[in-house]
């Protein structure tokens, strides 16, 4: 570990921390329908869109109508993207004349991007045309992120409103999130990336002659615009197969820093937006503190493990020690331009959020590092998470935490002035149980079926980790890949699509139901028996609940993979 490495991590945390309050205030104004700096520019576009779509922005929806609107909108999204992929040769901007995407892969890809997962069972640059990258993939990146934020905002309104039958208007929240939040930040982000060397062109792949006289095809395209929304949306689907490890997606340490900031900025700002919406910014800071502790433990653990190197490689006389001959240390699976700190920071941010972009190969990390990355995803995206999904995941844990505290002291639990009753608890459990059920159930099935084992690149606990990682990533709507698993088969495409669908929509529905239930309540007056949820005590309690619930759910599964592999490594049994 180096001082420069730690400084890079601290600088990242400082930038994200400084952005949290102003961006949180901006989000609160946008979703409250208030005027913003961009009103004069975007207001007419917004009004025109409502007119075309026949949306009455002042008409609010019950949670059920909000949920059905969201489901129908995304059903059309899946069908539309599926059609775009299947009819790829028909569309323009296909200079490489790429053929149609196969049916099962098209379904997997459509579900993947509509659910904000961006799991990619394909090699992007040799599978998708520019039209599909721009019109298919990028559009869904915008809409899935805006939809996630809309759900979080609806839940915030549930906490903030009194005796209300409505939680907002899905179409308005979707439109305002896209136009006022995602689009402006992405334009700035794309310009920054272009300035630092990321290509933005519709020209076909370049063919060059190498120094040895060979012929090389260098893929390129409209990368910068897709890169910006890929990061900001928590989507993570790369223009290239190597994702942010590719020099055209992430050319310099500066772009690397900017990319991790883009991934986290909306998730952290939403905690502040929550605090403002419920009338106490401290409530938002509490959530951010818990996220920061979980994130700090993850990135610290990863840096420690990766900097120490692999004893199995040391026995083969591989030099992993920093020195004049080898200035970076243990570079297994990492890019030279980012080093260990830049790689572990990106890996932790990517799995703690729901982004899933990668700038290093997670499969090549130490076994326990793989375990940390898995654990990040297994806690239901609450360590910042995706735009919206991180916050509503964390609020579900808050509900569980106050419920447990209520059981301990024998009082009806309440959170930010709302009583948490039997209905809210049942719905919260429904939302929280479907992700582990899909992850562990599908992992078990894939471990015993021939089609599931066919794609494995490794045997033993590492192979099992590859399967567990794939389903964890899918159901947590993360989308990062452990690598080593060839997932472009009918079995993997369909089962992963199922995991992504469950992990997104079967969580969102009960979350919106909780929002509706809370909005219908009045405010519960604060009393001496009320658990204060804006203090350090609640930070510790919430942290404990997340770790214990996550641990109880997934520790046995982790023990069979990364932990066994770590013990094998220590025992010299890894070859």
């Amino acid at each position: 570990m180096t001082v420069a490495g730690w400084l890079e991590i601290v600088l990242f945390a400082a930038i994200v921390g400084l952005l949290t309050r102003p961006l949180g205030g901006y989000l609160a104004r946008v979703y409250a329908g208030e005027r913003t700096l961009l009103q004069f520019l975007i207001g007419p576009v917004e009004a025109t869109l409502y007119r075309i779509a026949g949306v009455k922005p002042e008409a609010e929806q019950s949670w059920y109508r909000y949920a059905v609107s969201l489901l129908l909108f995304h059903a059309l999204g899946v069908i539309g993207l599926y059609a775009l992929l299947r009819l790829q040769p028909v569309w323009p901007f296909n200079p490489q004349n790429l053929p149609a995407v196969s049916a099962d892969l098209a379904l997997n890809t459509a579900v993947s991007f509509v659910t904000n997962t961006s799991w990619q069972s394909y090699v992007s640059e040799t599978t998708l045309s520019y039209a599909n990258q721009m019109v298919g993939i990028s559009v869904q990146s915008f809409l899935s992120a805006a939809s996630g934020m809309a759900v979080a905002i609806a839940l915030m309104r549930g906490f903030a409103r009194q005796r209300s039958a409505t939680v907002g208007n899905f179409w308005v929240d979707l439109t305002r999130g896209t136009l006022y939040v995602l689009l402006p930040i992405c334009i700035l982000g794309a310009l920054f990336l272009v300035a630092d060397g990321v290509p933005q062109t519709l020209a076909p792949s370049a063919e060059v002659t190498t120094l040895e006289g060979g012929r090389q095809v260098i893929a390129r395209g409209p990368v910068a615009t897709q890169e910006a929304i890929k990061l900001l949306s928590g989507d993570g689907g790369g223009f290239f197969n190597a994702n942010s490890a590719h020099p055209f997606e992430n050319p310099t340490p500066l772009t690397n820093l900017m990319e991790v900031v883009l991934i986290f900025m909306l998730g952290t700002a939403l905690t502040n937006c929550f605090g403002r919406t419920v009338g106490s910014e401290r409530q938002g800071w509490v959530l951010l503190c818990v996220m920061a502790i979980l994130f700090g433990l993850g990135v610290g653990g990863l840096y420690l493990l990766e900097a120490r190197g692999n004893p199995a490689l040391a026995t083969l006389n591989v030099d992993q020690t920093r020195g004049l001959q080898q200035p970076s240390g243990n570079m297994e699976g990492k890019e030279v331009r980012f080093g260990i700190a830049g790689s572990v920071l990106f890996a932790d941010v990517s799995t703690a959020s729901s982004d899933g972009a990668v700038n290093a190969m997670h499969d090549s990390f130490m076994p326990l590092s793989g375990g940390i990355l898995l654990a990040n995803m297994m806690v239901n995206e609450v360590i910042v998470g995706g735009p919206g999904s991180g916050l509503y995941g964390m609020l579900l844990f808050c509900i569980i935490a106050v419920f447990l505290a209520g059981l301990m002291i024998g009082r009806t639990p309440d959170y930010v002035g709302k009583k948490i009753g039997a209905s809210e608890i049942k719905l919260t459990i429904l939302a929280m149980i479907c992700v582990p059920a899909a992850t562990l159930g599908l992992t078990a099935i894939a471990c015993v079926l021939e089609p599931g084992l066919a794609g494995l690149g490794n045997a033993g606990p590492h192979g099992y980790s590859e399967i567990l990682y794939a389903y964890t990533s899918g159901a947590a709507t993360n989308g990062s890949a452990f690598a080593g698993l060839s997932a472009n088969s009918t079995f993997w495409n369909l089962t992963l699509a199922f995991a992504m669908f469950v992990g997104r929509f079967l969580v969102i529905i009960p979350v919106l139901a909780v929002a509706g239930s809370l909005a219908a309540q009045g405010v519960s007056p604060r009393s001496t028996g009320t658990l204060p949820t804006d203090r350090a005590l609640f930070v510790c309690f919430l942290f404990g609940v997340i770790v214990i619930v996550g641990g109880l759910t997934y520790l046995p599964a982790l023990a069979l993979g990364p932990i066994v592999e770590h013990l094998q490594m220590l025992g010299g049994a890894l070859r």
Partner: protein
Amino acid sequence: MHDVTMLALVGVSFALAIVYAKLCAHLLALPAREDVSP
């Protein structure tokens, strides 16, 4: 044929999700037990 199967899967999945939302609404409509906290 593949396309019909895949689109049918999409349709059935989202239809079931709407049914799931209906069930959640039903769950909310159930009468709550009396609050017995002191």
